[in-house]
């Protein structure tokens, strides 16, 4: 897909502590891709409601209620807006300090996913924090928006960890599915990974077919000029990958996005979600 030269990296921030690290990750990606960064903050839907349960309607009730709700919304929106502008400026300063030249800021009203979909065409990479402002302390869970974005968007998504360090050791989680093969293909061609140490990891019982696929993937990466190791592990990916990451000092994980059985993942959760949750490093997810 053709990349638009401007605003290639879309960095989604909000009031959470991830805002700084999102900016740092975006700066790293933009530097490597020689792209600009667009900082995006989306103010959520209106949620003001009165606490009147009296069930009465007085004369002119509709007008009164409208005025009351507008008043609440207005106050809340004003506050959110000024905070958001501050957050955006902070992030912009951080990006400029990191040497990104083209930065622009976008403050929108509405739903994050819908906004991202509208911007998808002008974007080649999305950077977002692992959790939003609303989910800060429930560290066991991902942000509610993150999973929606991973499922609905077609662009690679870089999920920022809480802290940032320039990635040098990369693990590619390889399961032989189409999205993983596509991920390897993208990695081989992308400027993001030049000069980084790459380990291809396959989890699950080894057999001939998967070994062949793994070798083909390694070859493809080598063809892209990337130094690559291979590893085959027998455990399930959702526990094995985080362990390897910890053990080898990996600082970036690359993986393919969700499998297609949505109803099943709705019931029992998915591998992708668990890996994202349990790896304490940034993760780049390809469709």
């Amino acid at each position, binding site marked *: 897909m053709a990349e638009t030269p401007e605003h290639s990296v879309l960095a989604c921030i909000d009031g959470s502590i991830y805002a700084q690290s999102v900016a740092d990750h975006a700066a790293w990606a933009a530097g490597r891709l020689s792209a600009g960064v667009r900082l995006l903050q989306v103010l959520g839907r209106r949620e003001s409601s009165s606490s*009147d349960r*009296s*069930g009465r*309607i007085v004369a002119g009730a*509709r007008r009164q209620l*409208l005025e009351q709700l507008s008043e609440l919304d207005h106050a809340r929106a004003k506050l959110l807006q000024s905070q958001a502008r501050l957050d955006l400026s902070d992030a912009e300063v951080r990006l400029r300090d990191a040497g990104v030249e083209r930065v622009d800021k976008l403050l929108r009203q509405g739903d994050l*996913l819908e906004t991202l979909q509208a911007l998808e065409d002008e974007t080649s990479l999305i950077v977002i924090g692992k959790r939003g402002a609303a989910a800060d302390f429930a560290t066991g869970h991902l942000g509610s928006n993150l999973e*929606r974005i991973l499922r609905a968007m077609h662009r690679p998504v870089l999920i920022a960890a809480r802290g940032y360090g320039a990635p040098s050791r990369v693990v590619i989680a390889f399961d032989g599915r189409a999205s993983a093969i596509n991920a390897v293909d993208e990695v081989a061609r992308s400027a993001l990974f030049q000069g980084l140490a790459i380990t291809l990891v396959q989890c699950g019982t080894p057999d001939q077919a998967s070994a062949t696929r793994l070798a083909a993937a390694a070859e493809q990466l080598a063809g892209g000029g990337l130094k690559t190791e291979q590893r085959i592990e027998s455990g399930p990916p959702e526990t094995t990958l985080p362990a390897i990451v910890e053990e080898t000092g990996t600082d970036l994980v690359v993986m393919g996005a969700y499998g297609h059985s*949505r109803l099943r993942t709705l019931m029992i959760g998915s591998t992708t979600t668990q890996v994202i949750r349990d790896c304490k490093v940034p993760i780049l997810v390809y469709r």
Partner: protein
Amino acid sequence: MAHYDMAARDWFALDHLRSEWFGNVRNDLIAGLVVALALIPEAIAFSIIAGVDPKVGLYASFSIAVLCALTGGRPGMISAATAATAVLMVDLVRDHGLQYLLAATIMAGVLQIAAGILRLGRAMRFVSRSVMTGFVNALAILIFMAQVPEMIGVPLATYPLIALGLAILYLFPYLTKAVPAPLVCILVITGIALYYGLELRTVGDMGDLPDALPVFMLPDIPLTLETLEIILPYSVGVAVVGLLESLMTASIVDELTDTASDRNRECVGQGVANFCTGFIGGMAGCAMIGQSIINVQSGGRGRLSTFCAGVFLLILVVFLGEYVSLIPMAALVAIMIMVSVGTFSWASLRKLREQPLSAGVVMVATVVTVVATHNLAIGVGLGVLLSGIFFAAKIAQIFRVTSTLSADGATRRYRVEGQVFFASADDFVAAFDFAEVLERVEIDLTQAHIWDVSSVAALDTVVLKFRREGAEVVLIGLNAASETIVDKLAVHDKPGASDLLSAH
């Protein structure tokens, strides 16, 4: 290039559905309960208006609320048995009985589904604000009038109880807003009546209450053309009024919550709700302005609030049926007076003086017609007709003909500006002086718009008359001026379209 594969689109739809249902669970549950408590007295009162047992309205309210939650296009809007549809069916029940009402309800549902599929929701834009205000005011007056029989020739103790009920409804919320005032009103008045053993008319006197969950049954009517002839006029009225009130309520909820609704889906949803309701022995209904406001006021936003309102209502009446039958009518009358006062647009009375006369005439005409005929559809029809006429009369004023005579006196050039259509066609013809002796007449239409066949005929007349007087007639700019005759201008999507309407 925005392309979405099936997987992403399915996920997106599922996600959207989840937020519509479970985006606001706690508030939706509370609001659902508040609304259910407020719905019970209304459903009983509207059954009494229509002349059927209270259970007909209660079953209807349950089923319509639940089905609209599932199928409607406006999350958070409350639909149930309503006064607007009840008043339409009074004659049908009196002359033919309950079974015909059920059949008419099913038929109305079919018509509403058709309206939704044909995307008639768009037609609402011809209903002006004045007509809507008239509709709402007429509805309030009808609800109030329906209470009058309960206030005439009844035991004397009724009057102080109604007064007490109103006092509770309006004053109790100053004490606390955490408890629904209608509930307090019912409990207090029922308590007083029982304690003093007052001889009062009660809900139990008005007919059967639900004693079981509703069951599926076919209306007991002959399936003949004659039956259709009987029910169709009522079904059409109910379908039209139901959609009008529903779409109007939807736009009120849109405004209050600052979110959008899907009007055509709402039409289909109302239709499905009425269709199914007829089969479980419920009367036709639609969205309710007052209840929807109460729902939003109580924090209800999602489909869950509407769904819960219906389910709570059914649970309450089925299990508390014997207690519900003890409620004195005085308590219901007080609640319905509050509803009618709250529904009436008092600001519209003040605005009568400020707004243009035509707006006031439309509003008052709508109200008077409805109150006289007890049919909201007729009132709205008249209101729409009047506002159309007034609008045409106003636009017809944007029209002017000027002329200049050439130096030799043989040629006159008429310059027509503005809108030429049926309402201004006579003025158009009258603007020309046919008695003047001329060799040549030039009619410059560059600044005019010819809108319809009436104006084309008028132009023909003018040309012919001048020819008869011996003049040569030249039309200038006719092509551009007559581009407006075609029915579909598609103005909005053509570049430079606004030029078409200003000058050529």
